[in-house]
């Protein structure tokens, strides 16, 4: 199994409602695979048979993930995620060549610690934390980028949306010590309060700074 697939399954722990469906789909896919293998063994001409019998779609995504995606309805298609309305929470595979990331997770604000723990156990390191100010939707997006040292590339982005009026989110600095500085920086720039952070003082701005320059309505 590829590392992307392994990580996807690990991350699905966060969403039990999809995990069961996903496991079932994977079992079905395995079964199909097994059946196919036996069929392939029986047949002489391999190529046309696989193409004809391959389950749903012929996308450039990881093959093993395909049937799973087809089975778990709430997971949107990777091609056009922003097609109909806001995206729902869940795990999504993205095209590395087009996006630079492999797995994209949208979760509730209180799930980021769980996500960090899963990533930590899977041997990932934290690349960056940042915010995005969606002033039109009155929301702040917090983005966590994870990466790993393996020879196979797998970059995971975990994102969550919090209300702009009450920007609070639990800290992950006790799981990942590198988050300490990243969270302080995000606090500087966006005013996001990381609940439970040991030392949430300005890191890049002057010690007495009371402004958050990367908010879209900031005026110096």
């Amino acid at each position: 199994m590829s590392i992307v697939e392994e990580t996807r399954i690990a991350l699905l722990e966060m969403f039990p409602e999809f995990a069961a469906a996903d496991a079932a789909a994977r079992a079905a896919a395995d079964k199909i695979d097994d059946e196919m293998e036996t069929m392939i063994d029986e047949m002489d001409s391999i190529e046309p048979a696989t193409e004809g019998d391959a389950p749903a779609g012929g996308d450039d995504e990881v093959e093993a993930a395909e049937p799973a995606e087809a089975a778990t309805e709430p997971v949107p298609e990777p091609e056009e995620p922003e097609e109909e309305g806001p995206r729902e929470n869940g795990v999504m595979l993205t095209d590395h060549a087009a996006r630079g990331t492999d797995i994209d997770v949208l979760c509730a604000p209180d799930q980021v610690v769980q996500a960090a723990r899963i990533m930590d156990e899977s041997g990932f390191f934290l690349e960056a934390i940042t915010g995005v100010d969606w002033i039109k939707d009155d929301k702040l997006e917090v983005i966590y980028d994870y990466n790993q040292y393996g020879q196979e590339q797998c970059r995971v982005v975990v994102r969550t949306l919090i209300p702009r009026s009450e920007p609070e989110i639990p800290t992950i600095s006790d799981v990942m010590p590198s988050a300490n500085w990243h969270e302080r920086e995000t606090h500087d720039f966006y005013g996001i309060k990381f609940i439970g952070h040991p030392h949430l003082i300005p890191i890049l701005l002057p010690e007495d700074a009371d402004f958050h320059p990367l908010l879209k309505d900031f005026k110096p």
Partner: protein
Amino acid sequence: MGTENVPSSIVQFAQLDKLLYLCRANSLWPMTFGLACCAIEMMSTGGSRFDISRFGAEVFRPSPRQADVMIVAGTITKKMELAVKTLYDQMSEPKWVIAMGNCAICGGPFKCKNNYNVVEGADKIMPVDVYIPGCPPRPEALLEGIMTLEEKLTGSRRWPRIQPEKIGSLT
């Protein structure tokens, strides 16, 4: 910031002053004070090719108490402002300031809309004697700046200034 008026002493030793300034001009001790990119060009100037010691200014001193000239090499931010001012105040008289690079002259590329953290020019916080434009200035420009400061001190230039039209005839 306006010009600083240092009251002159009642008794003047014209010839002695001249001699002192000649000595000072030929042994300007800059302070080791790199802020940003320009600091690397300042290091290059001290390095083997440009060799600032030809002009007696190679003694980079980390302590402001031992330095004559402060080369502000880089951007001054709001957080750094107080430290720069303190360093300048700690230098003993007579002292001079060279603003090296566009950031130290006026904020350079960081003078922008929504500027919240950059001080637009070293002359906002202390008197500056020589401005060296460039982003970053070449080492030759820094050498020229030092010679300009010498000229300011002694009233005469050590080397003749090469006119642009003469460069063609020299090569």
